[in-house]
């Protein structure tokens, strides 16, 4: 019920979250109350005379044309928006003809983000919605891929049915009817692919899958218990604590433990690279020991000649896990702890810098702000600065963990104080600027790291400088009281940031991500290398 209400209100207000943020509690409560009272009548109105809206396809590729059509009161004005919840990609106002019909179209940009988009057609506050998916691959291939899955399921089902017939088990007409319905959907999907209606084909294939999936469930329930008729029924018919199932679980568990060891090893690499001193050799030795033990365990699980009991292997695995946990704890209490201390120290310094910059900024903007509040906030920021100074002093003696709560509170105080500044959007803009600058700083550091490794960062440096220039311009606009333009510039900086980040990331973050993908692929290959090509009797 609550959800209905909030949906109702979001239909009538365009950006609910932003609206809520800048509103006082009282106003918010009032609006919510109105929404609560109004929404039932809204629903009724929708049913009676509300508009309708459709797209010509359920799914598109980027660059394709989307045709939107629908109905509303004859000769009325309909507003159409298309968005994925965060970005609006199309907006149009159309007029219905004498029959109450309307239509419009637009082309999806090539760089449009893949996802589900909602088309909202509204006549005043009465709305209708339709949705479509923008896929990120060849739609034809996608439709065919889905159809393949449906086909596989269909074949499995046929095999099962033949088997049931052999066993003399009767399958109800209802199930057979459902099966036929599924096959019909499958064939329709096939035809749609032939007709090059790939979006509809994909949707039809999904429908076929869903129907056949239900039938599979029903048919599976009819399979007699004693004799596993299909090889894959082997698993189902055994008790859950069956050795085969537990064995498979152990394979997976060993696999996951190995993946974990790989990851922690990479972390050790990076900690060493950062120059932290700790007993690297010993820790690596222990991880190596754990890895060897895991590989040996896998071999034991696989060895045909020596029958090792599943329970024994599980116990061994638990011991290795414990050992891994200890080793990880060791790494944590040495290198990671040092790293955290350094991070905290650096962070405190950054926060102090930020407070200093903010103070300057507020001073520059004082003509635009209420004098009393400016002084108050300035003092409060000064307090935060001193608070952090004291925390920094305690870093050498106290445990980091003990300081973190206080540090968190001090940081929150900055935002709380900025909120007290009035002036059109000043506090919001200041906070956003604060965040963007902090992001830039992180990028700057990443670029530095890249440079140390011998990477070329001249482009990035240039762009970073340009972004800094933009931020200065934004400040000027703020000083002039033009917060809208300031906001625009800020958006530009954010865009630049995203772009820059794309440039910086490949060598650093993508490296991590690539490693991760490599690992998955490696594991999958380990796993499948032994099985593919699939063996048949």
């Amino acid at each position, binding site marked *: 019920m609550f959800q209905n209400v909030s949906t109702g209100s979001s239909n009538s207000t365009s950006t609910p979250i932003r609206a809520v943020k800048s509103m006082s509690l009282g106003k918010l409560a009032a609006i919510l109350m109105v929404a609560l009272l109004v929404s039932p009548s809204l629903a009724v109105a929708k049913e009676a005379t509300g508009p309708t809206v459709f797209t010509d396809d359920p799914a598109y590729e980027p660059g394709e044309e989307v045709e939107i059509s629908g109905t509303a009161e004859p000769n009325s004005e309909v507003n159409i928006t298309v968005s994925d919840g965060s970005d609006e990609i199309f907006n149009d106002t159309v007029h219905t003809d004498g029959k109450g019909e309307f239509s419009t179209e637009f082309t999806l940009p090539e760089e449009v983000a893949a996802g589900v988009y909602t088309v909202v057609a509204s006549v005043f506050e009465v709305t209708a919605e339709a949705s479509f998916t923008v896929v990120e691959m060849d739609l034809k291939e996608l439709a065919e891929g889905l159809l393949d899955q449906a086909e596989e399921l269909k074949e499995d089902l046929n095999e099962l049915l033949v088997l049931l017939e052999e066993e003399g088990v009767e399958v109800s007409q209802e199930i057979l009817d459902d099966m036929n319905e599924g096959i019909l959907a499958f064939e329709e999907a096939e035809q749609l692919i032939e007709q090059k209606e790939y979006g509809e084909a994909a949707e039809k294939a999904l429908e076929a899958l869903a129907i056949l999936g239900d039938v599979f469930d029903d048919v599976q329930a009819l399979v007699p218990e004693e004799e596993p008729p299909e090889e894959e029924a082997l698993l189902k018919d055994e008790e859950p604590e069956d050795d085969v199932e537990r064995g498979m679980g152990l394979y997976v568990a060993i696999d996951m433990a190995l993946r974990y060891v790989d990851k922690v090893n990479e972390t050790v690499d990076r900690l060493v690279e950062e120059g932290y001193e700790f007993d690297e050799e010993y820790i690596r030795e222990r991880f190596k020991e754990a890895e060897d033990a895991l590989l040996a365990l896998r071999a034991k699980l696989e060895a045909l000649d020596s029958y090792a009991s599943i329970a024994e292997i599980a116990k061994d695995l638990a011991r290795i896990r414990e050992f891994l946990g200890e080793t990880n704890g060791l790494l944590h209490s040495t290198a990671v702890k040092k790293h955290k201390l350094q991070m905290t120290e650096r962070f405190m310094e950054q926060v102090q810098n*930020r407070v200093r910059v903010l103070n300057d900024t507020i001073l520059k903007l004082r003509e635009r702000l209420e004098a009393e509040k400016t002084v108050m906030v300035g003092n409060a920021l000064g307090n935060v600065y001193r608070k952090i100074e004291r925390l920094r002093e305690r870093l050498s003696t106290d445990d980091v963990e003990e300081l973190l709560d206080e540090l*968190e509170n001090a940081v929150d105080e900055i935002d709380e104080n900025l909120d007290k500044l009035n002036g059109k959007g000043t506090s919001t803009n200041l906070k956003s600027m604060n965040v963007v600058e902090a992001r830039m700083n992180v990028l700057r550091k990443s670029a530095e790291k890249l440079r140390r490794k011998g990477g070329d960062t001249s482009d990035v440096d240039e762009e970073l400088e340009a972004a800094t220039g933009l931020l200065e311009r934004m400040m000027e606009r703020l000083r002039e009281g033009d917060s809208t333009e300031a906001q625009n510039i800020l958006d530009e900086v954010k865009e630049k940031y995203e772009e820059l980040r794309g440039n910086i990331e490949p060598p650093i973050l993508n490296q991590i991500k690539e490693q991760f993908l490599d690992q998955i692929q490696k594991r999958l290959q380990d796993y499948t290398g032994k099985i593919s090509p699939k063996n048949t009797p």
Partner: protein
Amino acid sequence: MIIVLTLTLFLAAAPYAFGQEQYSPRELTFVVYQDGYVAVDYYVDVDPTKARVNVTIFGSQCLDLMVEDQDGLPLDSSQHDSVLTIDTLGSASVLISYVTMDLTGKSGQIWSLMVETPVSSVIFLPVGVTIVSLSTVPLAMGSIDGGLLITMPVGDLLIEYKISLVGTREHALLVIKDAESTIQEVKTGGIITDEADGLLQQATQAFEAGNYTGAEQLAGQAKASALNTKNAAASASAAMDAAETAITAAEQAGRTVGLEEAESLLEQAEASYASGEYAEAKALAEQAQSKAASAETPEKEGLPFFWIGIILVVVVAGVFAFLRMRKPVPRAALKYSFDLDALFDAHPYLRLDDKEVLRFLADAGGEAFAAEIRDRFDVPRTSLWRMIRRLEGEGIVDVETIGGQSLVRISPKYRSGGAEA
């Protein structure tokens, strides 16, 4: 009332908006394993002006949790249900990775992956997966070495799938092992599993030849055969017990006419049981039982049955003569002594009855006919047979058929000294 509702609404909405400010999701990957575990990798942008950030993760039971910053350096975190509080200390983005079982469920043969995602997600499904249903049209779909790779849009994600493990090396291996242990278990009950042994051997050969699907099928058959044999042996044994009970009952009631035939049939049944012909043993035992049930008291015989009586007497006499002929043949006069203590040490799980019988055998110079043991201990035939089969299975005794009778012998390896005259 309305105020309460509104307040609840506001409170419910507040953390959401707050969370939105602290972090924004960028990438999300789920690697699904065969047993329902899911490895999650979640990459989010966080507010770099914060010391700590709360991130809502997927599932609440996490294993192998790791949080790294944009440079791959570790960050500390603490978890409360599905909220992860990360000490970000100025980081701009974090990579959270862990393993959880909370995202999948299984109903019958169908698995489901269900999760609400704030960003489009990439899902790796393991080898052998067939999709059964998808909540919505995926954004992309492909395969890596037999595994499926699906990109799903933001929102409620539901993927139903089934896994056929058939054809994988690991699975074949496990099925073979499973068959092996089942057969072993059946064997320790003193049951002969020749057919299952043969099938298992074929399965192992198929496995070694790389034919995993075939190996699995054969191993499955081997296991089924072992279990069938076990059932057949159990029902034969039950039938033999029933026959024995019926014979005893008839004896006690004095219904001796026709009883000898029943006893003879039961002996045949035992012989069949001993050689692993369980179906035949059962059939014979059943005949024995029905013969015993229909045995009659001699007094009740009327005059018309006089001749029948005569014939029966002749038959009984014949059977007696036959049985006499079959009385234990004199055995070789060699007697051995045995180190029973060593034997008991080597087989710590022997039952008291087993030990008694072994002592009896040892005293008898290492061997005795089954009939002798039965006479000595007064145990039902079938129980004795099971015991002997079990001891034979453990390699403690050997059984040899001499003149239609079973000679039970302690294995020569337990002899302690030379032969005595």
